[in-house]
């Protein structure tokens, strides 16, 4: 039986707000929250704050105050092992996330699927699908070092989505992309909430994700 999660993401943390958690009247400020099937674009946070939130979610730092709940679980209260398992259900692009330089593009795309313990056949199908969506077929056998800036960003984005994550966090996903890549990315990101994933995009000032962007 699938467990129902009210919020895929809840941020109660000093990282989100420069001000204290209570406002002038003493009321607790509403946390930054996201429900399954929602797409939210958040432009109110500084890049530093977004990076720190992502670093906390990725386990690279601990939140000094407040809490971050991912898929119904408070990261500050669960074990490291449990946090690792939850991370496999996330798709993150931005912050400290980079491609694994020793692997090829294909191996990078396959990694999150392998960590989620999909079968070999399922992994192959997913990699083919995501490569097709983002027009990466010709790059699959290349090593990461052979990729240009735009290609890297597309592969990072594709890897974040390859394993059908339940919560997707993207920081400036469209920056630096050419028109064709941008259009593909917008199309895929807008499609994700339909399949039930929660998507939070940080600092997309182009408003393309909210409006649908410019068609290719």
């Amino acid at each position, binding site marked *: 039986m699938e467990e129902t999660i009210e919020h895929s993401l809840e941020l109660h943390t000093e990282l989100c707000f420069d001000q204290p958690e209570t406002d002038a009247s003493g009321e607790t400020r509403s946390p930054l929250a996201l429900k399954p099937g929602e797409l939210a674009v958040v432009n109110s946070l500084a890049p530093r704050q977004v990076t720190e939130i992502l670093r906390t979610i990725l386990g690279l730092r601990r939140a000094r105050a407040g809490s971050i709940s991912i898929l119904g679980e408070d990261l500050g209260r669960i074990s490291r092992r449990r946090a690792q398992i939850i991370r496999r259900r996330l798709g993150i692009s931005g912050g*400290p996330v980079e491609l694994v330089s020793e692997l090829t593009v294909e191996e990078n795309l396959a990694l999150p699927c392998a960590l989620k313990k999909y079968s*070999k056949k399922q992994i192959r199908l997913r990699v083919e699908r995501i490569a097709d969506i983002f027009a990466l077929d010709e790059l699959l056998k290349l090593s990461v070092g052979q990729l240009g800036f735009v290609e890297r960003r597309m592969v990072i984005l594709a890897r974040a989505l390859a394993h059908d994550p339940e919560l997707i966090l993207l920081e400036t996903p469209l920056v630096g992309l050419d028109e064709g890549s941008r259009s593909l990315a917008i199309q895929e990101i807008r499609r994700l909430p339909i399949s039930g994933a929660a998507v939070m995009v940080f600092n997309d000032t182009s408003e393309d994700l909210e409006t649908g962007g410019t068609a290719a």
Partner: protein
Amino acid sequence: MSAGFFASEFKRNLKRSPFSHLGALVMATVLFALFDLLWIGSKVADDYFEKLFAELQAEVFFADHVSESQFDSHIAELRDNEQITRVEVISKDAARQRLRQSLGRDFLLENDSNPLPRSATMSFERGFVSTVALDSLRRACLRWDGALQVSYDRSWLSETEENQRLIGNALGALLIATLIGATLNAALLAGLVARSKTRHFNQLRMLGAGSSTLGWPLILEGALLGALSAGLSWAAVLYAQRRWFDLDIEWAIPPTDEIAMFVGAAAVVGALGSALAARMAIWRKG
């Protein structure tokens, strides 16, 4: 993660630092070859001592009042003992003859009777002789009515056993030292590989890889290093023995199943060394 992932990680590690891997393999092979030679040496030493002990004889003397039937019964009991390979009966006359041969003349000529007792000398199976075993045999023989004495060179046996023990301890210490060296060698390689892959590991962790996903390739690499170097060491020792040292010395080469067990144990040693290094490099960071 699948076996394919681990195999790919191993290939990547090998490609990233081939000379480190080669160096570790050579070092481990040399250490295990030393271990093999010490092992052979300890078996040669054991064989030598066993042969030496098997040459020791004991002699049981009987009083004159013991009847022929009682005497025959005691001799039969000795012959029935599986650890005694040969029982030689020495009659009173034969004893006198031996005394005359060893001293050069018959000192008992002027005696009216032959005071020398009947006796039986015993030779033993290889592997039986020890002070404990012969003391136990002596006590058993002395319970017989009419058994006067059981004689054997106990002080020599005791000293030789002590020498054997000292040699065994020294060889054992050297064997343990080489095993520790081999473990540390595997740990060194795994530590080098882990430290050179810090960024790689961090990125995998961010995707949700656990410590076992990161550590198992290193442990399997250590096991492979251990098994391969142990196999190579025996190949080198056997080749050298046949090619250059085929002397008239009997090399006590262990049987194939023991060598196979040793290769398995070497794999465990390699895995253990790598696990220790992986624990420090990976597990502490969660």
